[in-house]
């Protein structure tokens, strides 16, 4: 049994992002959630990422799943009659590196080293989310990343996720919105797109 909040393991890592496989099929953290992995150095290096993508695919790249439900009554029946499916499929999620903690101090920019393969990945606690959300300087990384999802979608999803741990959600959203208005000074349409998605 995995410890509390542990959701998966790093299977691909670079300076700017990492990919983790979930322990349970379909149990990837929601889009925009804050996750962390720890590099066990002498002074442990905690690395924070924002989930920007999740993929479920076959374990073997060449073997594509086939449709099985023609004679079944429900989706659950398929998994019940073919229990091996749970072992043949896997869910992965990708996270964009947005910060790290070293010597107890939180930095909202890229860590000096990438995570290691098989590093455990945890979903951050509410307290950690609140601490991380005290400054919005990480939004700049999200806005400038080249990702399969649009930056506007990712920023909006991240803010919606973070806002859940705050008592005064609308206050949080207004503060974040103001930060975005400054960052996107000359890009009115992008700003409008995000604001439309984070309206409380």
């Amino acid at each position, binding site marked *: 049994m995995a410890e509390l909040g542990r959701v998966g393991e790093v299977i691909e890592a670079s300076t700017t992002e990492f990919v983790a496989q979930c322990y349970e099929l379909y149990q990837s953290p929601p889009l925009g959630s804050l996750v962390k992995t720890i590099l066990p150095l002498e002074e442990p290096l905690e690395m924070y990422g924002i989930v920007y993508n999740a993929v479920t695919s076959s374990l073997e790249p060449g073997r594509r799943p086939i449709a099985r439900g023609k004679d079944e009554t429900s989706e659950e029946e398929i998994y019940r009659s073919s229990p091996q499916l749970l072992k043949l499929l896997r869910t992965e999620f990708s996270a964009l590196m947005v910060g790290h903690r070293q010597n107890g101090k939180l930095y909202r920019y890229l860590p000096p080293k990438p995570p290691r393969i098989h590093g455990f990945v945890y979903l951050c606690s509410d307290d950690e989310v609140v601490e991380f959300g005290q400054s919005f300087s990480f939004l700049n990384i999200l806005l400038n990343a080249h990702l399969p999802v649009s930056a506007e979608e990712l920023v909006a999803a991240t803010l919606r996720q973070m806002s859940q741990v705050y008592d005064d959600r609308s206050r949080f959203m*207004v503060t974040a*919105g*103001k930060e975005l*208005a400054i960052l996107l000074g000359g890009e*009115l349409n992008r700003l409008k797109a995000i604001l439309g998605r984070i*309206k409380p």
Partner: protein
Amino acid sequence: MTQQSSQRLGIVTDGSLTKGIEVRLDSSASVEDMAVGRYVTIEGEKRRFFGMITDISLGVIDPKLTLTPPDVTDPFTAEVLAGTSTYGTLHILPMLTIGGGATDTIEGPQPVKTVPGHFSAVNQASQQDVELVFGGEDARKFYIGTPLDMETRICLDLPELVKRSNGIFGKSGTGKTFLTRILLIGMLQKGAAANLIFDMHSEYGWSGTSEGGRTVKALKQLFPEQVAVFTLDEANAKRRRVSTDFVVRIGYDEIEPEDMTLLRQTLNLTEPAVEAIYQLSRKFGRNWLQSTLGLPESEETEEMLKGLSIHESTFQNLLRGLHTIERLPFLMPHSPDNTVKRILEYLDRGINVVLEFGRYTDITAYVLVANLLTRRIYAQYRERMEKAMAEDTAPPHPLVITIEEAHRFLNPGVSSQTIFGTIAREMRKYNVTLLVIDQRPSGIDDEVMSQLGTKITCLLDNERDIDSVLSGVPGKNELKSVLARLESRQQALIFGHAVPMPVVVRTREYGSPESYKDFLSPGQTDTKKQTQKDIEELWK
């Protein structure tokens, strides 16, 4: 520097010393809460600056925002954009530095000689800041009013004020008379100067009326021991139940040709007619006026006029003018008492003299009497001052002469000839200064305007009047917008010698029983002092 964060308005983004400083408002401060004329402090790195808001404007970070305005019906969008993409800017005129430098700490606020650095924080000025700049009430300083939206008292240094001639301007009905009354009370309380007031409409002596028709007490009622009311019109004073101290009568023999020069315009005299007055006075001496009026229509007269080379039509023109003067009831062939001597006696005892004109409010009487008396009083002061300088004794107590409708005495045509022009220009050399009250400052000679030390101006809306009042003031254009936006009552802009920086005040209340008490209570000690002085005089 303890400033509450709630007072923070924004940061400095741009500016120059001559044109003023641009401040970007924080998103927490709304443009609608700002007001032109309000004070701010700017926290520079080494100094604190004190300035006044002179303009407020709106800005957008991206011009596209003005072309495709966002949906502001949505409160969230509106709140996010306010202060970030859309923002307010303040235009601030820095005036003084307070605190910081060594001189500031020792000598108080200094005129500003530089601007604060980029992104210095701008705060709304606190009560303490304003007090630091304008000072609290004390033996010299007199409380004249409060700044807009503040309870702090703005005080004028009266002994400093009376060292130069001053002006009170404003459209009719904006409170010039009330302001003058307050200022006169101040001078009286602080013993800054003795006042001689030429009271054209009988508003300063016993009682005046407010805009609403209410009667308000004037100087004599409030300070009976320190004010003497002189009148030209005894009957009128009796009807109004005003106790007067002296009835002014002027003898024909007291009128000198110089007194007539000023009346040239009012009496419609020609240039040769004025010249003729001098010739006639040379011929007849002191009694020239009476003698001229008494000339019979005979050949001898014609001969005499010919001898003096005065043309017949000139003489007729002069006679018409002299008859106008002759009709003034307070003039008589020979005056039983010497008015100038009387006035001086009172002034010497530190008693202020209000000269009421009663029904004789026409400008001829006013100009004649004011000019005639002032010329003689000024000559006396001049003599005494010169004597005091020669003998190294105490100079005479400062004298302030208050004149209304000042443009009649100080317009470019006559200011070089009248005594008032001389006083305004020569200023304090002889301890005599003017308090000029006028509603059309543009009618006053520029040279005189430039010599006025402190100008107090209520609302003016004529472009030429505004230009004339503000000529030569640093930050003129900025002050223009402040001046034009004064409320039409109880508000005034004060600038010049007696205040460290231009200031908009809501003048203190005058007319209610509490206000009288306020005026009287700090004056109590002065009254006692005055009584003491009177007793001493008696035993001399």
